[in-house]
């Protein structure tokens, strides 16, 4: 891709443990334009660590290395922590799984959004408040002025996740990483939140990395899907062509979920081959 927003080549994340080094991410390569890319895998596949490495949120004891990890031409591995901070939350934003844990419990929602904005832009308090309210409106919160002054525990999960999206979008990022943004929500709320995310990403022409364990959800939401297994990419495929997936892991993952209207007893299970992880 010529105008790649994000270019990753041979990304590795290594954790030191008592029993030696563990590679959580083992040579992941992909590039991202202004599109919706899904990263799918089961627990331990390294999908979240990939997202965190891009964001620069890898725990300090772990080591990140890559032949190339570039965002808009900026080499993320060689810039200073200060430069990295100015990107994070500004040009690259991240939505985490559970608003119960990712929002600050002792700060009102409005103050958190304003804080994010004023960290990255020089705006007056009054203007910041205006923009925060507008952003809350954009994520379809009906009474922004009321929600602005609420604490995270006073709102529902769906509302909290919308506030989180508002906080992440207020700086107008070019790349958004959403790590299981709807897994903690009820199915119907899940769709509302996805709809909002979808609309905003499309309107603002952002690149989106959608990390999830739910292959079917990801394939209905994203343009392209990267399937990870044991720290590696086993398959990259267009979401529309997922039915023709080649790798047995991708096919197994699609197959093993019960579906309404398809009676299969017993359900097909994954027969994990050691060579997938090789």
């Amino acid at each position, binding site marked *: 891709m010529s105008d790649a927003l994000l270019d990753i080549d041979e990304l590795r994340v290594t954790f030191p443990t008592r029993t030696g080094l563990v590679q959580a991410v083992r040579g992941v390569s992909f590039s991202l334009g202004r599109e919706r890319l899904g990263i799918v895998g*089961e*627990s331990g596949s390294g999908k979240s660590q990939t997202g965190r490495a891009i964001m620069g949120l890898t725990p300090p004891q772990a080591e990140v290395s890559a032949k190339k990890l570039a965002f808009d031409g900026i080499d993320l591995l060689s810039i200073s922590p200060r430069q990295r901070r100015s990107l994070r939350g500004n040009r690259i934003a991240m939505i985490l799984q559970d608003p119960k844990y990712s929002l600050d419990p002792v700060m009102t929602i409005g103050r958190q959004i304003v804080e994010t904005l004023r960290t990255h832009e020089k705006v007056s308090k009054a203007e910041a408040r205006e923009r925060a309210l507008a952003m809350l409106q954009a994520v379809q919160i009906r009474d922004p002025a009321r929600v602005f002054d609420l604490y995270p525990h006073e709102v529902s*999960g769906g509302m909290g996740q919308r506030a989180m999206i508002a906080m992440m979008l207020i700086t107008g990022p070019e790349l958004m990483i959403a790590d299981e943004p709807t897994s903690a929500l*009820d*199915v*119907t*709320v*899940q*769709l509302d939140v*996805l*709809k909002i995310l*979808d609309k905003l990403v499309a309107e603002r022409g952002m690149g989106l990395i959608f990390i999830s*364990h*739910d*292959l*079917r*959800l990801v*394939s*209905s*939401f994203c343009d392209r899907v990267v399937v990870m297994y044991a720290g590696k990419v086993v398959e990259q495929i267009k979401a529309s062509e997922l039915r023709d997936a080649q790798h047995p892991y991708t096919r*197994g*993952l699609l197959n*093993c*979920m*019960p*579906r*309404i*209207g398809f*009676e*299969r*007893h*017993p*359900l*097909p*299970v*994954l027969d994990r081959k050691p060579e997938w992880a090789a």
Partner: protein
Amino acid sequence: MTAAIAIEGLEVVFDRFRALKGVSLEVREGESYGLVGESGSGKSTLLKAITGLAPVASGTVTVNGKPLGKTRDKAFYREVQMVFQDPYGSLHPRQTVDRLLQEPLAIHGIADGEKRIERALDEVGLGKGFRFRYAHQLSGGQRQRVAIARALILEPSILLLDEPTSALDASVQAEVLNLLEEVRRRHKLTFLMVSHDLAIITHMCERLMVMQNGEAVETLTASQLIGHRVSEDYTRNLLRASEGFVRTA
């Protein structure tokens, strides 16, 4: 055929909050019955009320023809066992699998423990090698297998399943669902299963009840649900949501 579980006008009240507002249902013997709903709909509370873990304000629960009083006797817990959602939270972290499985046997004074433990582990597809391990040495799927073994070891006739696979990966979920179907067939168990996932419920259950805000929305058979023959808007919404994201453009 007698009802394995019959519930009439069950109300559960926590302080002033009515978690269940007069719910009635009947689960036939040998049937697999599903409860679907979003968080806060009262589906888990219903299971807890049956086992005596939630404060019942009014209504009756009858299990295998016997009405339940304020307290449950030992015989009840030999008939009814529960598998919880989170296998990371429901197994004692400092007890070996062997010790975990011995506890129900000790409580009920069952003598042939040795044999039962071996059989129970064998049944859930864990070999003898797992017997002296701790929960933290097992994966999520293996832990849920231990939890199922613990429920089965007393040879109950009714199993209450509270989101037994929602903490597991999709591929592991398939394995555990297959295991549950297999033990149900082998022991002719009655299942009362809670899930927020319509696909899992239609896969596992013959009949189901949709719940919202502590009330029953409607009762359906699995084939009615598969054929989209539902009468309530709420159920229709749930069905639509379970089909994944649809872009409207």
